[in-house]
């Protein structure tokens, strides 16, 4: 049994279907536009891909995130025969911030995280199973596809609707500006002159199903892997070893020459592209035609992994490897085969998609056509709990840190979610000095809402527009996971999922399909609803 792509859609400024989008990209069109200083209250000139210069789509309800997600999912389902209201269908949403337009001083509440918007989206489609939100920074779109294939491979669901989406807002722009990571001009992946990334907005959907038929001509998600650098929360390990290890695992059983192309992450920041080029070279993939698509769409964050996977499929179906728009002269030290011009594809029907993100996470996916696909092996084990720890508000975690834990200069830089995860994991791991976890999977319901409020105050509050890079960083809830990875040298799979509620059955399913037998992992629920309302239920587990 194979996990195949039954339907796709992209809603972006370049079009409302996958085909419209591909045709636009093929013609060399880019959605990137220069936005004047002051656009949406952003006090600097930026270049971004947005639906309308005014900042709104034809959204009737003022909920652009939900509108584009609903439009994209409805279009992707068309003609697939998949019933969204079946109890064998799961909805997986990939996003960094969800309905980010509600994260403004007037409307921000403890319910403004992605869970609320996804609840309404699920209701719209009559979804009866519990939706899963993948909030794993910029690898979310790859992570969501991998989770879908694992669910289906393990027989937990027959169909999965994976939609990645994010919209451009002053919230995110402020954060990336404070990181000096935004290029004022159109981004130039892998180029000597690259100056940073551009933000973009889009929703992209892939509907997955079980397909026994090799003659279906469909794309099959053959394999994939996730790793962590355990290096730094906002900078990738310069040697690219995390990406290398993800590629190595995703390529198991195949050789470089089996690939038609590599769909790169290619954000056009100095650090990412340099690291990625090293990883490609060290993986022996320097001669495989590669492309980076952010010159057409900008960085669409939670959507990017899904969107770029779909465009790559369309390109290979069309027998072509697309030009990397913005690239002229190589500006990275590793050898990677990107090109300013279109090249014919090899016709083998197989590609690799790679992604990297804040929090040190990396992801690699391998897709092949059904006729020669190698089905994903999913042999789930059972969870054995080695130990657990619970902490609930009111609990003085700073006090515990001061009195009981080793001094760590990074502790006070963390947000509440990361501090709670840190203190709980330190106390738990102290009880098992000889056990070293290699993976972290955390869950919560409220995303990073406490930290979101802090960032909103610094960007839209009365004090003016002064975003702090470290405050912004922790508005990605998977930073809590990244901190545990750095602290404990955890280089295996790391992820953060947002659920509608603490659902032990669903959490166990995700853990079991994600982690191979023999893995030792930190897993559990870490939720901060408010500064004085939190819950930690962390476990040290092994998979048998």
């Amino acid at each position: 049994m194979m996990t195949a792509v039954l339907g796709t859609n992209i809603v972006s400024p370049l079009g409302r279907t996958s085909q419209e989008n591909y045709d636009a990209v093929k013609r060399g069109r880019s959605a990137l536009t220069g936005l004047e200083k002051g656009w949406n209250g952003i006090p600097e000139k930026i270049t971004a891909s947005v639906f309308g210069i005014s900042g709104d789509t034809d959204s009737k309800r003022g909920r652009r995130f939900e509108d584009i997600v609903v439009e994209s999912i409805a279009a992707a389902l068309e003609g697939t025969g998949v019933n969204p209201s079946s109890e064998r269908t799961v909805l997986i949403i990939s996003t960094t911030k969800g309905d980010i337009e509600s994260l403004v001083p007037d409307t921000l509440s403890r319910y403004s995280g992605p869970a609320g918007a996804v609840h309404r989206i699920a209701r719209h489609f009559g979804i009866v199973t519990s939706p899963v939100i993948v909030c794993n920074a910029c690898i979310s779109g790859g992570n969501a596809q991998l989770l879908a294939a694992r669910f289906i491979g393990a027989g937990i669901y027959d169909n999965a609707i994976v939609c990645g989406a994010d919209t451009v807002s002053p919230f995110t722009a402020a954060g990336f500006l404070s990181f000096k990571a935004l290029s004022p001009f159109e981004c130039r992946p892998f180029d000597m002159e690259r100056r940073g990334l551009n933000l973009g907005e889009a929703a992209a959907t892939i509907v997955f199903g079980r397909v026994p038929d090799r003659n279906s001509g469909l794309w099959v998600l053959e394999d994939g892997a996730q790793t962590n650098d355990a290096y730094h929360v906002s900078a990738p390990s310069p040697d690219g070893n995390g990406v290398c290890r993800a590629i190595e695992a995703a390529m198991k059983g195949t050789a470089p020459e089996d690939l038609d192309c590599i769909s790169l992450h290619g954000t056009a920041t100095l650090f990412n592209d340099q690291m990625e080029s090293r990883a490609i070279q060290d993986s022996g993939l320097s001669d495989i035609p590669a492309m980076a698509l952010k010159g057409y769409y900008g960085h669409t964050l939670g959507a990017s992994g899904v969107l770029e996977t779909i465009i790559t499929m369309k390109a290979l179906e069309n027998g072509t490897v697309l030009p990397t728009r913005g690239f002229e002269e190589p500006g990275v030290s590793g050898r990677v085969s990107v090109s300013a011009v279109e090249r014919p594809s090899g016709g083998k029907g197989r590609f690799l998609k790679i992604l990297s993100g804040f929090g040190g996470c990396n992801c690699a996916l391998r897709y092949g056509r059904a006729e020669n696909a190698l089905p994903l092996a999913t042999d789930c084990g059972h969870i054995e709990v080695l130990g657990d720890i619970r902490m609930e508000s009111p609990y003085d975690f700073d006090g515990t840190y001061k009195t009981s834990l080793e001094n760590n200069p990074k502790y006070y830089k963390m947000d509440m979610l990361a501090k709670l995860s840190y203190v709980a994991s330190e106390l738990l791991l102290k009880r098992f000095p000889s056990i070293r976890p290699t993976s972290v999977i955390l869950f919560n319901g409220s995303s990073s809402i406490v930290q979101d409020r802090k960032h909103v105050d610094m960007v839209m509050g009365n004090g003016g527009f002064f975003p702090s890079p470290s405050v912004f960083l922790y508005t990605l809830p998977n930073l809590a996971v990244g901190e545990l990875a750095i602290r404990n040298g955890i280089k295996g799979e790391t992820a953060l999922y947002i659920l509608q509620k603490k659902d032990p059955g669903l959490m166990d399913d995700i853990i079991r399909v994600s982690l191979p037998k023999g893995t030792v992992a930190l897993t559990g629920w870490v939720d901060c609803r408010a500064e004085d309302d939190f819950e930690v239920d962390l476990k040290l587990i092994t998979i048998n």
Partner: protein
Amino acid sequence: MNDDLILELKNQIIDALNLEELTPEDIDADAPLFGAGLGLDSIDALELIVILDKNYGIKLASPAEGKAIFKSVAAIAEYVAKNRSR
């Protein structure tokens, strides 16, 4: 002459960089901020850029530009005294 400014900067640095366990007296105005000194990293450098912008109206385009300025608290004070617009 920069003593007040140096103290002011130390307090702002402790606050913005969450150096919870330090007092201004713990920071040697002439000691390096990065590497050995306080062990600050690349995100801290970006926070220092925010301090200069927010409190003194000084805009730096990139951390590279800040390299010489952020050598020590005394070096920052000297730069601020010369270039501040508020």
